[in-house]
Every structure is written in C-alpha cells, then in structure tokens.
C-alpha cells in the first residue's frame, strides 16, 4: 500500500514536471486519487519536487478542499451562506445528518460519505444548494436531502444524482448539470450574439498600443469589485520591464451572493477566451491562466473543450488568425476552496503552488506578478467586455452607463425576492429599480457588492449602482424587514474569520474580537459603549489590515450600526453596578454542578 502510494504520487508529480510551482495541481490530483494528502504523500511530494514536507503541509492545510486526514469517497458540502439559511439550510442539514447517522464534519463509519459545509458555492439563486464531490445539487429540501443520501448509499456516484439538467449550456454533454442560469435580463454586452473571432480579428488590425488606447477610451473599469481602469492596468504591464508576461482571468468568484461569473463562464466562454487573447496581444503575453474556483470544477471539462476548439479554429495557439508571431495559450488553474484566492496577489500565490496568502505590495502585479513577471489579473466579466469593446468600439461602450462608470454590469440578485438570478443592466440603475425588477417585497436591507462592500437601509435605496455611489462586483443581496441586520453582520464575520489567510494581526485577531463584541450585543448584554467599541474596532481593522479582505470584512458591521437606530433600543442598555451582563454565572458553574451533583448556592 505504502509502495503504491509512493509510486502513484511520484507519477503524479512527474506529470506536472516535478515542478514545485504546480503543487496545487499535484496536491489536488493526489487528493482525488487517495481521498486525502496523507503525511506519507506529503513526504513523497516534497521529495519529488525538491521541496520540504512542511511546505507541502502548508499548502494542503490552507485550502478547504484539501485534507490531510482521509475523507469519504463522496464528500457532501452543504452551502451555508446566509441565503441558504434563509431558504432552509438548517432543516436540510439536519435531515441529511440524521439520514447519514453522522454530524456535520464527520464521515460515515464505512468511510463512504463525508458531510460538511462550505461557504457560498455560487448558487444563491437556487439555494439551498450543495456540492457532492464536484456535482452541484440545488433547491434542496429535507426530503430531497434524505433521498440524495439514500441514492448515494446505493451507487456512490454523484453524477447519477443529476436527473434534470439546467438551461443553456448546463445541458451540454460535458456539463450535464442541474444548475440553472436564471438569466432574467439580457443586455447588449454579454448576452447579445457574439460571432467567435470577431473581436479578436478587429484587435489584430490594430497595434497593441492602440488596443490599449481603445480600452482606455471605453473607460472600462474592472468588474471584479475594485473598479480599477482596465486600460491603465494593461498599459502598466505592457510598459513594465521583463520578458515573459501573463494574463490571468480571475474566475474565483467567491464573494457571497455572487454567481454572475458562473453564468458567463457557462454561456460566454468564447467571448471570455477571446478577451484574454486580446489582452495577451495588447500587453505582449503568450500565456493566459484561468483561475477557476474549486466550486466550479463541474465546468472544467467544458471550458477545456472550448479552449481545444478555439485552438483548432486558430483563435488560440500559434500565429493566431494568421498573425505571424502572435501566440497565446490558455491553461486552467483549479482553486481548492479559499475565498482569499480571489484577491489578485493571493490568486497569484495560489497559481505558483503556494498557500493563498496575499503578497506585500509594491511591487504590484502589472510590475511583478506571477513568477515575478508582469501580470494582469482581470475579472471574467471585464475580459468579456473587452471582446465586445473591440467588436463594437469604445464609443459604443462608453455611451452606456453613467458618466464615470461606462457600460453595463452583470448583477447576481438573490435573497428575499421572487426573481433571483442574473441581470445585465446599464450602470447607474438605482437600488430601488433592482428591488422592483427582482420583485422583492418589504425590503429592509440590501448588501450591495456582498458583505465586503456595503449594507444599506431604505434611506439609500435611491442610490445608483456605479463606482461613485453603490459599487459592486456583482452581488446584490436583498433582505426583508424581518431580518436582523446584526445577525447578518455576525454571519459574515464568521465567514471572514474562516476565510482570512491569517497573515496579519488586525484581520486574524481583530475579526474574532469584533465578532465577540457583536455577539454580546445580539445576546442582549450590550451597553451603549459597546456600539462605540464596535465602530472603533471596525475602523481599526479596515485601516490596519494588509489586504482587501481585512479592509472590507467589518463593512457589514458598520452598515448595521448605521441603520441600527430602530434596533438598538432592545439590545443595549446602561447597566447597574454589579456583575457584568456578559458574565453568566449559571453557565460558568454548570460543569461543576454536573460533576458534583449539587446546585450552586448563589446563582
């Protein structure tokens, strides 16, 4: 057995050229083959790629989908985002855990099935959802959960769980998924017809410099959330000293409540790859990498087939469309369950076979990114826009949207509304219009841009979706008036605590302390000074953290505090001298009471 492990692990490493920068792929392949990356396997990998066991361990323990301890043949990951809670996560989890006879995080005694949970898997419009190995199941109910377990027990083949396939390319033979696109509004940039090669052909008639100028004139800003001008980023990379350059597509889509890239990856695959090739031509790069989040693994065969097809048709590979010397190839790098890998420098670390820890800046990726080479990282949607801009022209694109944020935005709307799904809308649309479009009623709160952006109350529903007002990478979460804003904030603090890379103190420790403070108020033990403390701590974390995760994580708390007015009365009060309200003597003695079988005299 040990010999077999060494042999197969060695072969896997060899397949990836014994290259330590491909450690992600190696570890994932080993995990797939053996159900875990055991200490023995880590030793083997370290030996083969000439690294150290502790470096391999560092990688394996960082990612949610990799594991040192054996996992079941089938791993069920129930999505535990707040939207799933609202749609019945708890009862589904309970039903499945009873049916399996194990609790959350455990494996059945026969080693067949592991039941665990995952942060948002990008299916918030069809929640509650789960990943069964890489197969997505949606719209779960307790009954369907139980049935799913019974079926799995019989065949242990997740693919057989798919009895009905979704719309669009979800029924492509290489996808065959029950996921639905739920495209509710088709706009001109992404959901109009696109003739493969048309944008690329136009680009190749221009000089690389002029392609960059075209992008600058379109005033395209990054769609991943930060809104950095794409043309400027490209220019920096094109001008940076260095030989090899890289174009990376950020398909990590981890922001809770975001699922628009999933739909673009399914329906606009060609347009995306075309945008990458155009970017490659513009900045002088011959290699593209799509960093695909592990949760979207089910799209991998399809993506690879589109890459193949485009190679065949001369849209990728050597001498693209007959342009001598222009070469561009694309590979897909799978992620393995880490939200932080959406942050561009963490993403680059991950592509390099490292834990997804953000890098110190400067240098910025366009100067020195992947393997130290100038690198542009762009969101899926940004790159899709690029193809359309080259086809239709910068002026056409800039004529849409609001003055400082041009074009359209693909939004993923979910939560307390009747029509969750994907909407391509012009920038400048108001939050209120989104509420109406998605047929939400009684809306109390919205998370614009997901938890990392802002929580707004009704007084700001007139605000507009654009980078000067309500900025969003695509997530729109709607909550009705009955939802407790502080509980929403606490839920997302848990998310950020789980997903923090742990490198810097303000984020690693500060978030835990902030969560304790929020919890204290939710429990009814808060004092007015606690609200001020929560605000101070939030600002501290935002200002002192090293990367965008820590700098954004307290936003839901600040948002909740801002629209807190109506709630605060019930939660916080001045206290009389004596025991602090958060000190619960009866809880503190319960262990002892049980041990000695008598009651405390003073509780």
């Amino acid at each position, binding site marked *: 057995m040990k010999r077999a492990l060494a042999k197969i692990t060695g072969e896997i490493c060899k397949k990836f050229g014994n290259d330590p920068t491909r450690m992600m792929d190696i570890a994932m392949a080993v995990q797939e083959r053996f159900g875990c990356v055991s200490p023995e396997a880590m030793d083997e990998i370290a030996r083969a790629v000439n690294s150290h066991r502790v470096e391999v361990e560092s990688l394996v323990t960082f990612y949610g989908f990799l594991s040192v301890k054996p996992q079941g043949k089938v791993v069920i990951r129930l999505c535990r985002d707040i939207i799933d809670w609202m749609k019945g996560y708890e009862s589904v989890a309970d039903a499945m855990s009873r049916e399996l006879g194990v609790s959350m995080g455990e494996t059945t005694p026969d080693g067949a099935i592991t039941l665990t949970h995952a942060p948002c898997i990008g299916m918030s419009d069809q929640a509650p959802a789960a990943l069964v190995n890489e197969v997505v199941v949606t719209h779960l109910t307790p009954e369907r959960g139980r049935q799913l377990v019974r079926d799995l027990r019989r065949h242990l083949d997740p693919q057989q769980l798919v009895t009905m396939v979704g719309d669009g390319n979800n029924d492509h033979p290489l996808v065959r998924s029950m996921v639905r696109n739920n495209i509710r509004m088709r706009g001109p940039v992404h959901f109009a017809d696109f003739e493969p090669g048309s944008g690329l052909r136009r680009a190749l008639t221009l000089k690389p410099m002029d392609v960059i100028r075209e992008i600058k004139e379109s005033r395209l800003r990054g769609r991943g959330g930060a809104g950095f001008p794409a043309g400027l980023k490209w220019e920096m990379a094109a001008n940076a000293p260095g030989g090899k350059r890289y174009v990376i597509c950020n398909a990590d889509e981890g922001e809770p409540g975001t699922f628009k890239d999933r739909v673009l990856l399914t329906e606009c695959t060609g347009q995306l790859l075309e945008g990458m090739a155009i970017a490659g031509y513009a900045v002088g790069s011959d290699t593209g990498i799509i960093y695909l989040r592990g949760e979207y693994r089910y799209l991998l065969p399809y993506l690879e087939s589109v890459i193949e097809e485009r190679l065949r048709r001369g849209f990728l590979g050597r001498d693209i469309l007959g342009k001598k010397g222009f070469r561009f190839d694309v590979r897909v790098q799978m992620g393995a369950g880490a939200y932080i890998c959406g942050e561009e420098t963490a993403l680059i670390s991950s592509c390099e076979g490292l834990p997804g820890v953000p890098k110190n800046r400067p240098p910025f990726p366009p100067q020195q990114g992947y393997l130290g080479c100038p690198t542009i990282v762009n969101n899926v949607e940004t790159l899709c826009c690029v193809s359309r801009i080259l086809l239709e022209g910068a002026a056409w694109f800039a004529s849409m949207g609001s003055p400082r944020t041009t074009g359209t935005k693909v939004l993923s709307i979910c939560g307390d509304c009747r029509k969750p799904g994907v909407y391509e809308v012009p920038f400048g649309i108001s939050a209120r219009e989104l509420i109406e479009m998605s047929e939400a009623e009684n809306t109390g709160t919205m998370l614009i841009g997901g938890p990392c952006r802002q929580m707004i109350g009704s007084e700001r529903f007139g605000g507009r979706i654009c980078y000067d007002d309500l900025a969003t990478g695509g997530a729109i979460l709607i909550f009705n008036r009955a939802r407790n804003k502080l509980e929403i904030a606490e839920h997302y603090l848990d998310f950020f605590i789980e997903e923090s890379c742990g490198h810097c103190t303000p984020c690693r420790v500060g978030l835990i302390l902030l969560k304790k403070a929020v919890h204290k108020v939710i429990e009814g033990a808060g004092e007015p000074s606690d609200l001020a403390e929560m605000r101070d701590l939030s600002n501290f974390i935002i200002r002192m953290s090293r990367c965008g995760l820590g700098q954004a994580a307290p936003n839901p708390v600040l948002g909740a505090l801002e629209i807190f007015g109506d709630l605060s009365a019930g939660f916080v009060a001045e206290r009389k*001298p004596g*025991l*602090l309200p958060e*000190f619960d003597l009866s*809880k503190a003695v319960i262990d*002892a009471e049980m*041990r000695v079988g*008598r009651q405390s005299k003073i509780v």
Partner: protein
Amino acid sequence: MAAKPRIATVSLAGCFGCHMSLLDLDERILKLAELVEFDRSPINDYKDFRARCAVGVVEGGCCTEENVHVLERFRKQCDLLVSIGECAISGGIPAMRNNIPLRECLEEAYLKSPGVYNPGGVIPNDPEIPLLLHRLYPCHEVVKIDLFIPGCPPPADAIWDALVSLLAGRPAAPAYDRLKYD
C-alpha cells in the same frame, strides 16, 4: 478633620503574593495607614465590610462561585475597584487550567498526579466547598474594574504610586521601570 477614606482588600484566586508586596511598603505602610482607614482586609482580619469604602483592592481572579460572590460584594461596597497583580488582571497561574476541561483538572489533582494517595478515588465534594467555575475569569470580566496594577507581584513602589495617586484623585500611568508583568 474629614473622615479618612476607607480601603478594603481581598485575595481571591491568588497566592497572597500581592498582599505580601503591599506589606513590602515597609515604613510607608504606616503612612498609608495615616492616609486611609483599613476596612475589610486580611491585614486586619475583618471578615466583612463595616462601611462603604472608597477603594477596594482585589488580588486574584475568580476561580469559584464564592470568588464571584465576594467580588460582586466588593463592587457594590467600593467606589473604585483596583485589580492588583497578574492573577486578577489576566488570570495568572490559576488560568493555566483554562483550556483544560474541569473534569480533567479534578482528576489530575485528586486522582492521577504523582504523589497522590487517594485509595478511595474520591474527589472532594463537601457542600461547604464552593463550586469551581469552568474556567478562571479575570476580575474585569466579572465586574467593572477602575484601575489595574500589573506585576507578579507588582513592585511595592508601583502599588504605592498607584494608591497615592488614586487617593489624590488623579490616577496616573505607572513609571516605566515600575510597570512589570513578572
């Protein structure tokens, strides 16, 4: 002459080291006695308060329900409460059990540790023994504390400085060389 401010002291889950340091004030303890009237304190062996106090000095954290009870009483009887020493402030040695389940602690202490002779395997459980809390709580996690004098024990000078400035109504930050955690 106005009545002297009253001061009370107590040792909860501590080793009396902080009280020793208090006695270490040497001749200044007499000066202190001129400034204040000692109320409930192990120094004079008063078991309960005789009057409301200006200052309460607490050594040690809360390890048992009785500690909590006493601390609550101190909070109610004293205008200002001072946590003195590491045990009161951050738990100190007694807090080393904080991440070990109570059961394991008791078994280790009464049954398993080397040198224990306990043929009956009995863990003491007299109704007079106060119940242990599941972990040790620093004082400020149980009641509000107004001033902290760290150290294990705090140097006598640090105690002197802090009490004098407190009684003068202008609590001051400790001098650099008097601030110690050991």
